Structures are given as structure tokens and as C-alpha cells.
């Protein structure tokens, strides 16, 4: 059981978050007042069936989408009235994304993919390369730096994607079904790696619908029909025992 220390930083604070999408004349109320706070160093699984609003929530947290109503504070900074440019800068500085389908750029090799967020941070080419190589090394793919994504296995691709998410040194890592496209063994490898990152102190949010993956997190938030049904701290299952 995680010891909740009140002196630990609040990483994420969400209050009464609402979001609806227009469908023809009607509108679909996807998030119906979400309250969620995440402290620094947490590893949270967001679960729910499709249509429960879990991806919408992640998109709002990731500033890929904007809430209709409610408060969102990221590391003591209120996120509101985002224009496109501001959102881009915040995403670049504070957030790292890991996607189900990896979303690597196909014509760029591994190290170039990892460098991309650093390019948008305005770093010099040499510095970018050094940092990217460092993070590739962290995911154990230093020798694969010059390979294009289609020369890598699924697990390797996801590790490149993780290295890319880490490269910008974000406050918060957001993973949308990070193991959705991988087989069980590879999934556990990735989860093992995510757990290691969390051990080092990274705050990580994972959207998943797989129970075993969720149980490898420290906290599970269950969504149903746009509201939080359950929010529990769990005994973390270490992925390393399966690898």
C-alpha cells in the first residue's frame, strides 16, 4: 500500500470536469463531472469500457482536447484558455505521450524520432542527438539508433516511443493503451520498463482495459458513463516476475 504523504507535490488536480460532443442536434455528455487528483510519483491506471470517457479524459489531460467546464491544474499551473500555440508549448514542455500504435514517423530512424520533441524545444542539433542517444540507451536500443521503425519489432517500436516521450523530460507521462498492440510477453516487458520509470519518480497515467496491466499500476481509477465509479490503491504486481 502506498503511503500518501501530504508533503508530496500535487501533480494533477481536476475538479468537476465536463465534456460533451455534439452529435447532430443533440450532444453526447461524455464526462459528467470528474474529480481526480494525482500526486507526483504515482502510477495510475484509468480503466473503463469503450464509451466510458477514459480516452477523452486522457486527451483533456494531454491538452489534445479542451474541457467544456471544470478546473484543471497541472503541477500548480492552471490550464485554461489554451490557444493552439500555448497548448503546443505546454505539451512539448510538460507532457510525454505513449500511444497504442506507437506513432513513430516512418521515414525517420529511431534516434531522429526521439529527437523530434527536442527539435520543437529549439535545442541545437548536436545536443538533440546526444540527449536522444542517452534516452535510447535507457530503453536499451542504442544499437538500433539508425534503424527505421519498420525494421523494428513492436516492442522495440514502443520502446523508441517511450524514449521519445522521455526525451523532453516531461512532468507527466500519458500512455493510451500502451500494450494494446503487443503480445502478452512484450506487454509485460513494456510494463516492466514503465514500472522502472515510475520507481525513478516519474508520474505516469495509463489508459487500459486490461485487468492484468491495470494491476501492475499502483492505483486504479474506474470510469463508467462519464463518472468515476471506483478509485482504489492496489498492491502492485511487478511485471519483472513474468519477464
Amino acid at each position, binding site marked *: 500500500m502506498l503511503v500518501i504523504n501530504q508533503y508530496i507535490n500535487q501533480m494533477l488536480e481536476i475538479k468537476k470536469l465536463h465534456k460533451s460532443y455534439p452529435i447532430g442536434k443533440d450532444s453526447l455528455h461524455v464526462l459528467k463531472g470528474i474529480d481526480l487528483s494525482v500526486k507526483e510519483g504515482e502510477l495510475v491506471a484509468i480503466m473503463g469500457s469503450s464509451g466510458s470517457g477514459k480516452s477523452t479524459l486522457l*486527451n483533456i489531460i*494531454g491538452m*489534445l*482536447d479542451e474541457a467544456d467546464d471544470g478546473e484543471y491544474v497541472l503541477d500548480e499551473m492552471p490550464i485554461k484558455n489554451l490557444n*493552439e*500555440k500555448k497548448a*503546443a*508549448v505546454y*505539451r*512539448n*514542455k510538460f507532457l510525454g*505521450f505513449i*500511444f*497504442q*500504435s506507437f*506513432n*513513430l*514517423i*516512418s*521515414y*525517420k530512424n529511431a534516434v*531522429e524520432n526521439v529527437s*523530434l*520533441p527536442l*527539435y*520543437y*524545444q529549439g535545442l541545437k*542539433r548536436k545536443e538533440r542527438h546526444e540527449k536522444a542517444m542517452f534516452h535510447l540507451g535507457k530503453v536499451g536500443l542504442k544499437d538500433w539508433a539508425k534503424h527505421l521503425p519498420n525494421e523494428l519489432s513492436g516492442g522495440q517500436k514502443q520502446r523508441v516511443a517511450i524514449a*521519445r516521450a522521455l526525451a*523532453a523530460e516531461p512532468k507527466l507521462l500519458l500512455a493510451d493503451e500502451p500494450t494494446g498492440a503487443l503480445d502478452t510477453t512484450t506487454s509485460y516487458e513494456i510494463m516492466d520498463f514503465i514500472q522502472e520509470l515510475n520507481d525513478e519518480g516519474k508520474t505516469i497515467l495509463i489508459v487500459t482495459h486490461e485487468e492484468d496491466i491495470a494491476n501492475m499500476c499502483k492505483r486504479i481509477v474506474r470510469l463508467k458513463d462519464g463518472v468515476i465509479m471506483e478509485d482504489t490503491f492496489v498492491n502492485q504486481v511487478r511485471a519483472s516476475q513474468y519477464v
Partner: protein
Amino acid sequence: MFDLDLWREIFQSISKNKLRSLLSGFTVSFAILLFTLLFGIANGLENTFNSFFKDDAQNSIFIQSGRTTKPFRGYKTGRKIQFKNEDFDYLKNDFGDKVQYITSRVYKSLAASYKNEKNNYQIRAVHPDHQYLEKTLVYEGRYISAKDLQEQSKVVVIGRLVEEDLFAKTVATGKYINLGGIQYKVVGVYRDDGGDNEERMIYMPISTAQMIYGNNDYVDQINLTYNPAMDYDEALSFSNLITKKLKDRFNISPKDQRAVRVRNMAEASKGVNQMTSVLGILILVIGMGTLIAGVVGIANIMIFVVKERTKELGIRKALGATPKSIVRMIMLESVLVTAIAGYFGLLVGMGALELIGDSLKDYFITNPNVSTNLIVGATITLIIAGAIAGYVPAKRAARIKPIIALRDE
């Protein structure tokens, strides 16, 4: 500001997506190729038309005489009108500064020989002004002078091809040639842009010809140029005035079209100028149409390219690309592809004109080419076109929401 990293990104995007870049480039190359060929050929046609008029001064008026076809003031039809020196003097002196240069001509055809070389040539006996009317370029010695006329000197100025025929490779100036049994001193050799026939002529003082070949003061033709300050309408009314005065002088019916014929080059050159400018406008319209088709083509392809790259652009935005940086990237890529492809098309077009240019003489196309101005203009047009073609899809790309772009299929 030159952003090396941005250019690296763009170069990578172009070179790693060869087929896409090639397809978009091809449209532009083709459009510019057509544009270049069209302009080259139009210029070739214009060159041909201009060369027709290079021979003579464009403000020339030619006056010839014939036989009357209508009875007038008691004279019968069929009367031969013969110009004489006094008519030349009348035209020269009575019209003041309206006449710029004036000359009479007497035509003869004579056998010429030098040593063993012999040939028949057209002889033109003229006044010194003839040089300016005919745009004769003396490159050796001198032309007929006023003094020659006064002294009725036996001197001639021969064409470049006459010198070639009779004197082989030696210099003709200073030597004597035999024209119909009489020795003439060659005082000059000339060139003429009017073609080979013009360079197979022999010029001599009109007074000399009149004395030797007829012992009269007859004149076959009078040529003059009007004051170049006159505009087209003034030039036309001037030649009409000459016609009227001459008809009155020779008692010719004003309705007689044959007895005195006055030909004004202004009419002919105006026609040709009009035709060339109409042709130019036509070519410009077609050329612009081709260019616009090229721009539309690349705009279409850029829209497709942006669609194809939706996911990549979504990833870039999720990683922190601002809308501005997306617009800049797409636009610069478009400009670069357009500029390179367009330049390629231009080079191919110029090469093609160079290669086939000489074989098009039979189709009234002389030396087809495109000017430096046109090249610079076309290049600038291309860059602007590329920017326009890239802007709309780039703007659209920048508006793509990353969540939509990243949605898994």
C-alpha cells in the same frame, strides 16, 4: 532568418518521400517546360517577322511609276510616266524637314569581271542617302559620296558576295573591275542583313550611270524616309500628299492607281507589329494558363500530401509543433519542390529550344529563345506560386486536431 534545422527537416521529408515529391514536381516541370517552349517559339516567330523588315528602314516610302490607265486633262491612257532628276529635286526640296533621307535609283544588269572571274550582277545607281535607306553596312572602304555624284566618277561599292565571287580571298577595295566594258574603281565593300540577294548588288553614283548608259536624266524609282518624329497617321497622310502632288505634276487622274505608285512601309510594318503583339498576347494568355494549370496541379497534390501526412503532422503537434511551424514547413516544402521542379523544366525547355531551334527555320521560327528577364520572372512566379499552392493546405494542416490525426483506424 535562416533556420538550418528547418531546412534539414524539409530536405529529409522530400528525399525520404521520393515518389510523392517526384509526382508533385512533375506537374510543375511539365507546366514550365510547355511555358518555355511556347515563349521560345513565339520569340522565334517574332524574330522571323522582324528579319523581314531588317533590310530597309521602317519609315521608308517607295515611289515608282508606270503607265496611265485613265484619260485625264486631254491625255490618253497608256502614257508612260518617267521620273527625272527634276522630280527628285522637287521631292527633296518642296517637303522641307518631312523628308529625312532621299535617293533615286536607276537599275541595270551588267556582266562584271575581274581578271578571269566573271558574273552577272544587279547594278543600283543611287544617291549617297541610299546607304541609310537600305541600311547598308560598309565594312571596307567607303560608300558613294556627294563628290562622286558631282564628278560622275567611275567608282562602285560592291556587296560582300560580289567580293567573294570575283576577288576570292583578296581585298577588293582599290582594285578595278570591268562592268560592261568600262573599268570602275572599287571604293568599298558592304554587308546587308536583308539576305544574300542584297549582298550580290553593285552600287554606283546615279550621275555616272545616267551619263554612260543612257545619256539622260531618267530615274527608275525614288525612295525616301520620312521624318521619324511623325506618327503613323502623319506618315500616312504624308505619303498620300506625295501621291496627290505627283499625280497633279504629271497630269494623272486622281483615280489612276497604276501611273504613280507610292508604297509606305508604315502600313506594312503596322500590320506586322499588330500581328506580333496579338501573337504575343495570345502566347502570354496560353502561357499563363499553363502556369495556372501547374499551380492548380501542385495545390491539388499538396492537399493530397497533407492528407497523407495527417498522422505525421498530428504526431508532430502532439510532440509540441506549433501551428505556425507546421505552416512554415509545408509551405517551404512546396516552394522548394516547385522551384527545383520548375527550374528543371525551364532547363529542359531551353535545352530543347537550343537543340531543335535551327531546324525550325522552315516554319518561320528563327532562333527561338527565352530571355534572362523571362527566366528570372518565371522563377519568381514559381516561388510565389509554390507559396500560394502550399499555403491553403498548410493552413488546413495546421488546424488538424492531433486527437483526430492520431485516431487509430
